[in-house]
């Protein structure tokens, strides 16, 4: 009887797919996604007891994924800002996916840029909501705040995104915010 595997099966295994997709939706770069996953798992492992005893362990793990992905994209944007983005030996992801069409990348980049301008809790809450579809209770539990606070974080984040999108999305009615 090894208890640890069952802890993994209980907490992590059911959300493996959500973890992967959360990171990918934010990062959209193979190497960065791997880095983000690794960093998220390091966070989980370092705080394993806290995770295992958390009232909503899976939301906490998914938050760690969002945080790790967010940090990776921030670093990426900083490198770009400082002109020290990837070296020649580190090619950008060449996956021939529709998502990497210019328009899509620009839209994704714009969204992330807007998220990067938010306070950290607001960004995390907004991403947990937008990327993972988490309930306010789950977001609150992961952030360690009240549900009403989580709701406020998301509402404010959403408002910022609406502003960013409204500037950018003229002529893209399908992406206008329905409220």
């Amino acid at each position, binding site marked *: 009887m090894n208890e640890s*595997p069952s802890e*993994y099966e209980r*907490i992590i295994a059911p959300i493996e797919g959500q973890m*992967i997709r959360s990171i990918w939706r934010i990062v959209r770069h193979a190497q960065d996604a791997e880095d983000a996953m690794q960093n998220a798992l390091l966070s989980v492992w370092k705080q394993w*007891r806290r995770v295992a005893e958390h009232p909503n362990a899976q939301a906490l793990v998914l938050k760690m994924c969002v945080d790790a992905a967010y940090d990776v994209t921030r670093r990426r944007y900083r490198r770009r800002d400082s002109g020290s983005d990837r070296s020649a030996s580190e090619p950008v992801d060449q996956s021939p*996916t529709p998502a990497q069409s210019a328009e899509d990348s620009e839209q*994704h980049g714009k*969204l992330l840029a807007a998220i990067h301008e938010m306070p950290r809790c607001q960004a995390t809450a907004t991403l947990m909501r937008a990327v993972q579809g988490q309930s306010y209770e789950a977001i609150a539990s992961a952030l360690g705040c009240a549900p009403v606070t989580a709701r406020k974080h998301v509402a404010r984040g959403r408002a910022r995104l609406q502003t960013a999108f409204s500037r950018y999305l003229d002529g893209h009615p399908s992406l206008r915010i*329905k409220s």
Partner: protein
Amino acid sequence: MNENTHSVDEPFFDALDCPLPDDVERRLRARLAEFRNKVTSGLPAPEPRRKRRIRLWLGAAASAAAILLAAMLVVAFRPQVSFAEMISAMKQLPWIHVTITDNDGAVREVWYSPAKDVSASRSDDWIEYFDHKLRVYHSYDVSERVVYRVPEYTPRRSSRYASMAESLRTLLQGGQLNADPLPRMPFLEWNRSKPELLKQSLTRVEEQGRQSLDYQLTIRYSQVPDPVRIRFLVDPETKLPRLCRVEGRFDGNEFTSEKRFDYPERGPADVFEIGAPKSARLIDRVPSDDIVRIQETLRAGRQRMDDYRAIVVSRTDDPDYMWWINERPMILYRKGDKTRVDVAGGKGVAPRFEKPADDADLEKWWRTNSEKFHYYPLYITDGSTSFNVESELKRDNETERLVVSSVKRSVSNQLPGENYPPYWSRSPEYVCRPPLGIPRQDFEAVLEMKPEGGPAGAILLRVRRTGRMPTAPNPDAGKLPPAPDLYRNWLDPARDYVVLRHEMLTGEAGKEVIQGSTVVEELNRSPGGTWYASRFRIKAVPPVAHDELFNVYIDFHVELPDSLFEPPSVGDELL
């Protein structure tokens, strides 16, 4: 999430949504698999990843390596080398007796009789006596003043020290250095890592009026930066070791371990001869006949299951969960005692599906759509041997190839019939026959024929921790969740005692908290008559919010060529 908020957040979700390339999913799943292994192994937490593209868990491995290597060399105590590796000449020795002095000055003793096939040990905390021929194990808990008697529940092992003695005897038989000695010293292998020989020397010395061969080696393990120095003093006539001294430096700390060998004619006859008082309370953990019959029936079910190919799919019971986007099927194969686990992905872009209708036939839906994925092997097993296949995506111009990057072989240290393959908790014949965890000296098994609660008609096998067992200290124990104190298995006597519900609990009686629970919701019978689970549920227990539901769509009449169960080689193209 209600419909209203769905519509509000949908544009953001769409803006962030993007098909997940299969190679990315495969890479991220590989990280998760590594993590799962780390959780399973109970290794200390790894160092943060500071540099990109560094071997991911190297920091952790090196750190853990130091601890484990130190444990192996300093605390070396448990028999490690299989009996088959013993050379017959050693069987002539009546007894080998080793006195071990640890770095902290603590002294322990180990006995092994190749002739009798008995081993024993004595430390400040525990006194143990293994009769490998009778397969009975006695141990005395010094602090509790209790003697446990339990059937030997791990395969018989010979003594590490017998192996060491025999290796040296054959290695130095000619009285000269062997240019490549490490292959003859398997006891130096550690954590599947073979050491590198840095230097060696062989001289003749005289100590306390006694001649000895002084054989010294300096070796290095790839995971540990500092070399390890080993000195053997060997009897020049018999070539048997008198002394083994190990010195090294781990995590900045010097350590020394010393083992002194002697070869007496007589050794201990039982646990009482090496210090256990005869007045000690005896706790007998030999299972009752009823429990033995249940164990044997479950074992037979695991072994007799028909060959099959099964599509295993899962989802949570969260009504908002978009499982048709997020979930991938897993394919399990079984042929005799060989198994294979294939996962979806590998290369290209995964197919995307629309949400099936509420009244859709999900078996038909999965059987149709599961064919649209690529699959590649993750594990292949042959009896107790397991092969973990790792792969990487190679891109040449416009083409992608999924190529085997490594095949890691491991052998399960379980008794025959007690092997559980990877992903057994998703396998239809195993999930309803989980490990019962007995016999073990620290757990007491009680069978209740008319229990309250539980599935109708079920009997209850309670396995509760009521004792202790000698275990090596785990430096990371405080960071891990508490180990269960109680296992409740609800067995169906009408269906070969399959486990309908399996629960793990912590806490004292009356204040128990469920840590995990698996419920078999549907059972079917194979053509050969073996019951298997076709639908089961891992119950959500706090902090998990939603149950995990599993469905198994199984085919028995499929051709399963032997080649399907042959582990690939590094470089082989999988997709």
